[in-house]
């Protein structure tokens, strides 16, 4: 009899055959099960293929060389096949990333690529291109005493609420230095990458909250901060494009669900483009600018 671990993350009860210490323990009937086993070599009826993934209606397959293969099925089951000896944090990194992203899309949820921060009694999501400062802003706000619901993937459910993910940020060393956070006791996400798992237990907000704002961070090569509120098709496209792994949507035949949730969500939230000088990232100034903007 395999020991089962039960967690709650992103509003889902997850039963796993292996321990996922990043997630919070929970009891209850599972929405999703994670097992170890053999994954298919290839999917049938592939709609969309990337270098490392295949997607079809209800099925998704991801391969990360020398780490693991992940087969995500019907939004309720993930099979992990190890390609390395140990089931370690590297295996979990890609499970909690792209594989979960596909799972959310299969379930008709809206995963947005970015971090979710509780401001007053609602949530603001920071999204934008990789490297633009999404997690850095989350770390900054947490350092200021705010609470976060998620990092990297922020999931919006059909009630237009952001559901809490798990109490962990992934922060690069340069940002830790900026925030005067010592890295000695932190664990690197992978041995050769100086990006650290930063537990945020006390600053984790573990209840769903309505989404109020999405801030799309961009960089520019001049000084000062700018913002623009987006409307209409520009607003729609901006959030569609910042959907986590938005290229999976078509492959999973989830365009309709995706379109519907976006259409339902957008009239209820504000979306802003906020541009900052490309370097260095001035966390306090950017944080102040955003707080003033949302006031």
């Amino acid at each position, binding site marked *: 009899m395999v020991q089962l671990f039960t967690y709650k993350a992103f509003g889902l009860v997850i039963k796993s055959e292996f321990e996922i210490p990043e997630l919070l323990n929970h009891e209850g009937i599972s929405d999703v099960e994670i097992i170890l086993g053999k994954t298919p070599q290839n999917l049938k009826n592939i709609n969309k*293929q*990337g*270098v*490392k*993934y295949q997607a079809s209606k209800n099925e998704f397959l*991801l391969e*990360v*060389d020398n780490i693991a293969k992940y087969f995500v099925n019907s939004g309720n089951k993930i099979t992990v096949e190890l390609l390395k000896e140990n089931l370690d944090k590297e295996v979990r*990194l*890609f499970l909690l*990333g*792209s594989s979960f992203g596909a799972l959310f899309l299969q379930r008709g949820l809206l995963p947005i690529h970015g971090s979710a921060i509780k401001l007053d009694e609602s949530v603001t999501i920071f999204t934008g*291109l*990789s*490297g633009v400062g999404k997690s850095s802003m989350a770390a900054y706000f947490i350092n200021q005493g705010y609470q976060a619901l998620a990092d*990297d993937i922020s999931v919006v459910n059909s009630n237009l609420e952001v559901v809490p993910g798990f109490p962990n940020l992934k922060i*690069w*060393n*340069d*940002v830790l230095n900026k925030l005067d956070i010592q890295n000695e006791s932190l664990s690197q*996400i*992978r041995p*050769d*990458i*100086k*990006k650290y798992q930063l537990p945020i237990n006390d600053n984790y907000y573990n209840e769903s909250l309505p989404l109020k704002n999405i801030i799309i961070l961009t*960089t*520019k*090569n*001049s000084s000062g901060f700018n913002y623009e509120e987006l409307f209409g098709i520009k607003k729609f496209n901006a959030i569609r494009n910042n959907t986590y*792994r938005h*290229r*999976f949507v078509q492959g999973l035949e989830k365009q309709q669900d995706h379109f519907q949730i976006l259409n339902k969500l957008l009239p209820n939230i504000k979306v802003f483009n906020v541009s900052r*000088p*490309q*370097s260095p990232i001035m966390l306090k100034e950017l944080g102040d600018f955003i707080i003033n903007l949302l006031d």
Partner: protein
Amino acid sequence: MYKKNIIWLASYPKSGNTWFRVFLTNLLSDSNIPASINDLAETSISSSRKLFDEYTGLSSSDLTFEEIDSMRPDVYRMQSQESEELLFKKAHDKYYTVAKDQALFPSEISKGVIYIIRNPFDVLVSFAYHSAKPVEKMISTFNNSNYAFCDKNDKLQNQLRQIMGSWSDHVNSWTQQKNIPVHIIRYEDMIQDTFKTFSKAVEFIEIKKSKLQITEAIKKSDFSVLSNQEKELGFKEKMIKSNSFFRKGKSGDWQNHLNEKMIKEIIANHIKVMSKFGYLDSDNIPVY
């Protein structure tokens, strides 16, 4: 089956690559108005992190440099496969192999490479200005066989790592490889013999354009047009520390910035390549 539909626009930084890309954008567009320098698609840069993440389905920020390198050829293969048109992709990486018999830029999808080379003295001065670094420091960068853009592993940089090596390494890597047909353009010829130089490049790419179309595209890509556009609207590829991207666009400006010692050091390190491409005469005296 692969399609040979990618043209790599390769160069060491500050060698005229952007000028050539603006020319191409104008040549391929039907508009009467000069193309905006800010509309040169971000995704046309081969080190785009966004494109890599989209095509792999992974976050490059969770991968090592070696893992990213091992996947980049497949990212290009997939882009090639999805495109019905000729793709132009800027590259500052040198040409190198990422695994046994596996080049970073796969030959089976490559129609060719346009390699743009510029007098290293001028590159150096321009590069120093662009990066807001002293010329002395840029000389060591220039000579550094391990030089790479975006190679820090403790912070996330906006592009994927690009291994460049020394200036000579870079030139040799592209111009001596035998897997992709290469057409070499000298920046100085782009200035001095503009029509002929651009026409030859168009011929190499094998796109049918009339003399008039080429002339018009050259006019729309004139340095004054680009520089004015930057003054008016800014240019997103400019580094924040430099005042402007389009600085002088001339050849020979190095004489105002390099001293005797610097000149000697550069020549000593790059004499072979400089001579080969006509930047030194038979007495090793600078030509431009």
